[in-house]
């Protein structure tokens, strides 16, 4: 390695860094500035100090959206449990198991917009779900599934889980296949049954994957938009029942052209995301240390 100053590394870095500077770094500063302005995008921004933030603090819709985003984080533990169970189920040599694995992966690559629109058709009052439940006698009359405020968020979350479980299953499957067989044999000799053996060997062995999935899926949950957008037909649900922070940001910025207010929401989202990532990583690190 030469100690001499060389331009080479910087030349390698330049194209990517320029793109990131324009589309990621500059926007942070711009959003910070816009959040102190009244800005409709068409006319230049006007400095209004902390007005957007005081609006935000008193805005009930923002707090509702924030609460929904936190509720949405429930998808993370559900995803972890479901995908570990599924990974354990598919982690064996059975005829046709490869086909099942591939099948479970299909939602991952299908895209949330197309699938969300398909779900919306199915959950329609005149949809297949009502038809099935009516003919089984579970329902007496068709339900308006997506017009029920209490169900908007759960359906969005179900969609997120349905879209993601195959992906996380594959991650856990790769993790399971790295656990040495001897550990299971030792557990069996110690008198573990097959459930206990997974509890005592598989789960501790999957720690790195659990950390990864927890971080990735909870960050994604805080950013959720497509599921709400498609299942509520871009309206966010009756009585804002499907509003999340990002949905509200989108509505303020791109439906109402309130770039200033939207920027204040974006700053709140940034702070939450940061705080969340830090505690998330801390907690999970502590989890591994006590081991």
């Amino acid at each position: 390695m030469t100690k001499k100053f060389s331009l080479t590394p910087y030349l390698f870095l330049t194209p990517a860094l320029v793109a990131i500077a324009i589309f990621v770094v500059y926007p942070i500063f711009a959003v910070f500035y816009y959040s102190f302005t009244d800005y409709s995008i068409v006319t230049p921004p006007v400095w209004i100090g902390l007005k957007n933030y005081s609006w935000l603090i008193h805005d009930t819709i923002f707090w509702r959206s924030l609460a929904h985003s936190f509720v949405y984080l429930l998808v993370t533990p559900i995803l972890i449990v479901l995908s570990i169970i599924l990974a354990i189920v598919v982690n064996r040599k059975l005829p046709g198991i490869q086909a099942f694995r591939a099948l479970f992966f299909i939602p991952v690559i299908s895209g949330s917009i197309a699938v969300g629109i398909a779900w919306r058709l199915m959950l329609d009052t005149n949809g297949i779900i009502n038809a099935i439940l009516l003919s089984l006698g579970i329902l007496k009359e068709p339900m308006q599934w997506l017009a029920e405020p209490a169900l908007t968020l759960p359906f969005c979350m179900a969609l997120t889980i349905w879209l993601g479980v195959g992906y996380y299953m594959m991650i856990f499957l790769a993790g399971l296949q790295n656990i040495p067989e001897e550990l299971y044999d030792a557990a069996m000799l110690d008198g573990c049954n097959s459930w206990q053996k997974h509890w005592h060997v598989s789960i501790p062995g999957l720690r790195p994957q659990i950390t990864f999935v927890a971080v990735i899926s909870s960050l994604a949950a805080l950013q959720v938009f497509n599921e709400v957008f498609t299942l509520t037909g871009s309206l966010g649900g009756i009585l804002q029942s499907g509003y999340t922070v990002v949905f509200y940001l989108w509505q303020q910025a791109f439906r109402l052209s309130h770039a200033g207010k939207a920027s204040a929401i974006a700053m709140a989202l940034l702070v939450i995301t940061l705080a969340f990532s830090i505690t998330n990583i801390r907690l999970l690190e502590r989890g591994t240390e006590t081991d």
Partner: protein
Amino acid sequence: MMNQTIVKDDHSRVVLQKTTQNFFLYIILSCVAIVTVFPFLWVFFTSFKGPTDAVYSVPPQLIPHDPTFENYLRVWELLPVGRFFTNSIFVTLSVVVLNTLFTSLAAYPLAKMKFRGSNTIFYLLLVTYIIPPALTAIPSYILAVRVFHYYDHIQAAILPYLATVFNIFLLRQAYKGVPDDLIDAGRVDGASELRIWWDIVVPIIRPSLATVAIITFVEQWNNFFWPSLVLPTMTNKTLQVGLVALQGAFLNDSRGIAAGVVMTVVPMIIFFLLLQKQFIRGLTGAVKG
């Protein structure tokens, strides 16, 4: 003697246990498979239903008695679906090629060269990784409208994705596995750094490049949020954005919407089934990276 019967008994019990266990496993697998596949099957069949086949009936009818392409033709007639396809292909391929090139260039010095500011750059990139895309969308939108004037032009959907921090980290990790000796040997031979990178290092990290390309491909093909903001004109829309427009235009026409969904999803599913191993390894292989 007794011992033997016990062993034999034990053996047949184990076999029996195994068969019942497998039976239950297949039941679980099939239930999950039904939940996974059903929406696709239903949309697929619905898209071929003619006016005489009910979309909604009790008891439900899944398979059309009188299958027809009518719905697809109607969708193609009313919306520029061909344009949606070419736009999506153009955007996706451009981003895959340029992003893979730019991130593989950038990750190389971060893994293999000592230079002033390398740590600073690395940590700055790490910090930008958690910036919410919805946040960056606001200034990017304003840039598109006021500065770059590419609002409603297809480039608007491409340029913000020229480099992604995640891909840089993934490739940096891959470069770290390349032995320094190989690179030094190239230097001794007097090859330029760019030559060394292209001729010696890139071939070694090809599997990771494939991973990056596949991740980017799936992400871009399914990307909606940003393209939906900057591509308002019908003929400029990508498939995902066009599909939402179709949903709006075909409000009560489930058969037409279903046809749109099928057209959007099927290319990706075919691609996935052809390159299953690469897809799964690519999308999940990133974890180790």
